[in-house]
């Protein structure tokens, strides 16, 4: 890619992100360091909640289009449950998580579980599981960021040489280095609020990109009908039907699985749950739900339409993963293409930033401040937060250098495992006064271990089950259902059974969490 416009767009995006970090740093100083740095003083507004509390990453703008291009209209069924995401995300746990986090004073998810169930062991287990799962995701996101950046970076001194590092080309190494430096800079500066504001920024950019690309693709392909018929002619009738063209991408059992996946798994992500602890008030929550419903409708359906058209505009692409940048460069001016390409890069940056803050909060607040040095001064906590972000980023970037070639599969694994670990314990904490710490712990471990147990055979054998996305490694689809479904069932069953066999908690110990809200004195 030789046109400077995409590089200019990405440079502007990176500069804006660092500026956002500086601004967030000043904004969050109003409260205490920990609550300001890790929870934005519980002051998130509707736009921040709507555009950052759900599962969106670089995959939305890079991986998903390539699937539409390859398998056709069945992808509309794959993402159908996004129609339910706003209600599921905000109307089920929103108010209860917001209230519990205030009643307990918790600023991280493990802290909330520990205080609600009065169990340091549960808090420690939650921190460990969360760090383990997020580390998986982090590695893949670092690599995704480097891949995007390497395509637009100009040749740097040494970049044209024939040296390699861990088998990676010089331009990849430079891309990884620049990406890591930028993300670490603005995350260290702004913490949670910087991650949220960058996420809002990239979400708006993503909407602009989709809304620019959609009419251009429609015009170039002559409309949706010619595009569909061209796709059927090229790939067969499977392009217009389930389970998909060229491969059984979405058999019926997986269609049911993914209807559960996007709407329910999204509720259980640590990044989502912590945002439900950070919103300002309930009108904010309601408005966020409305905004997200409109946003999802404007993003996901036009993305399907656009990349159905791409099949007729760019027939026979050898690398379908490149369909987004190739289409942008084919049908838009270089500057517009630059804006469109900046969207997935911004999405990856925002995801990495959010994960870094989550892991840093687990190290600083849940491990050091709670267990090792409860009386630590603010300056030391600040230093440790920054050091842990830099340290985790260094590990993540190194992992990105060595990580294998199955990024999307890692993202799906980590998303499913996180939901199976945290969703049901959170529901128990919010709605079940009888729930016990042992029950919540059993639920968390059963969920994550079930998902792991269904992935490990696939990692070892790498045998193609002939369904789902084609890649380099696969989970074991027990009875054709995705591991997430079994993990969630195991998590729910373990939580209920262990709780009912355990001694009920003292009523006075949990009464305050389930009492009617007290009226707040008039200001």
């Amino acid at each position, binding site marked *: 890619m030789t046109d400077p416009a995409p590089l200019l767009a990405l440079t502007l995006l990176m500069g804006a992100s660092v500026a956002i970090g500086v601004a967030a740093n000043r904004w969050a100083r109003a409260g205490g360091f920990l609550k300001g740095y890790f929870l934005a003083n519980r002051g998130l507004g509707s736009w921040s909640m709507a555009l950052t509390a759900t599962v969106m990453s670089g995959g939305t703008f890079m991986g998903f289009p390539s699937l539409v291009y390859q398998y056709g209209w069945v992808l509309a069924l794959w993402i159908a449950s996004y129609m*339910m995401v706003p*209600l599921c995300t905000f109307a089920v746990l929103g108010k209860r998580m917001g209230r519990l986090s205030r009643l307990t004073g918790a600023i991280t998810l493990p802290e909330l579980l520990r205080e609600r169930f009065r169990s340091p062991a549960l808090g420690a287990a939650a921190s460990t599981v969360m760090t383990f799962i997020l580390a998986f995701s982090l590695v893949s996101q670092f690599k995704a960021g480097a891949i995007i950046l390497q395509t637009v970076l100009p040749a740097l001194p040494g970049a044209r040489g024939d040296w390699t590092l861990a088998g990676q080309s010089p331009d990849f190494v430079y891309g990884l280095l620049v990406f890591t430096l930028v993300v670490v800079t603005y995350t260290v500066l702004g913490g949670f609020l910087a991650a949220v504001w960058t996420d809002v920024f990239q979400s708006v950019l993503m909407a602009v990109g989709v809304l620019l690309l959609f009419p251009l693709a429609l015009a170039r392909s002559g409309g949706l009908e010619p595009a569909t018929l061209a796709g059927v002619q090229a790939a067969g*009738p499977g392009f217009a039907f389930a389970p998909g063209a060229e491969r059984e991408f979405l058999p019926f059992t997986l269609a049911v699985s993914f209807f559960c996946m996007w709407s329910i798994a999204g509720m259980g992500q640590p990044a989502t749950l912590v945002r439900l602890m950070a919103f300002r008030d309930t009108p904010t929550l309601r408005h966020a739900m409305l905004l997200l419903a409109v946003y999802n409708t404007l993003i996901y359906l036009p993305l399907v339409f656009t990349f159905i058209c791409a099949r007729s505009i760019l027939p026979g692409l050898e690398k379908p993963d490149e369909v987004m940048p190739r289409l942008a460069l084919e049908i838009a001016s270089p500057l517009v293409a630059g804006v469109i390409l900046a969207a997935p890069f911004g999405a990856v940056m925002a995801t990495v930033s959010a994960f870094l803050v989550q892991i840093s909060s687990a190290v600083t607040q849940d491990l050091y401040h709670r267990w090792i040095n409860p009386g630590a001064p603010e300056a030391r906590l600040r230093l440790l937060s920054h050091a842990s972000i830099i340290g985790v980023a260094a590990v993540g970037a190194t992992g990105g250098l060595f990580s294998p070639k199955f990024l999307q599969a890692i993202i799906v694994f980590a998303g499913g495992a996180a939901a199976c670990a945290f969703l049901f314990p959170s529901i128990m904490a919010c709605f079940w006064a009888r729930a016990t710490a042992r029950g919540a712990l059993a639920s968390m471990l059963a969920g994550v271990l079930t998902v792991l147990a269904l992935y490990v055979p696939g990692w070892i054998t790498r045998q193609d089950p002939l369904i789902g996305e084609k890649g380099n490694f696969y989970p074991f689809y027990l009875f054709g259902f995705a591991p997430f479904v079994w993990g969630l069932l195991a998590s729910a069953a373990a939580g209920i059974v262990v709780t009912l066999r355990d001694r009920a908690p003292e009523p006075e110990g949990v009464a305050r969490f389930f009492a009617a809200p007290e009226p707040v004195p008039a200001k």
Partner: protein
Amino acid sequence: MQASRREALFTAAVWVGACVYTCTFAYFFAYRQAPQPELILGMPSWVFWGILAPWAACLALTIWAALRGLRDEELGEEDTGA
């Protein structure tokens, strides 16, 4: 607490309705391939009736819930002693 529980149950009911309708419709109309698809507005008819229609219904229900359905509540005082 009562309002939160009622709203969670409302969401669960809508989710079950959307899931059953979408998956059942897809089972009968998306998984039976024909050489030429029947198109509505350029998309296969099963996409229009099986996904766009329930999506529109869910969008309307979500907007209703955001504007009228969910009750505003105080979230409580911050526990500063934790």
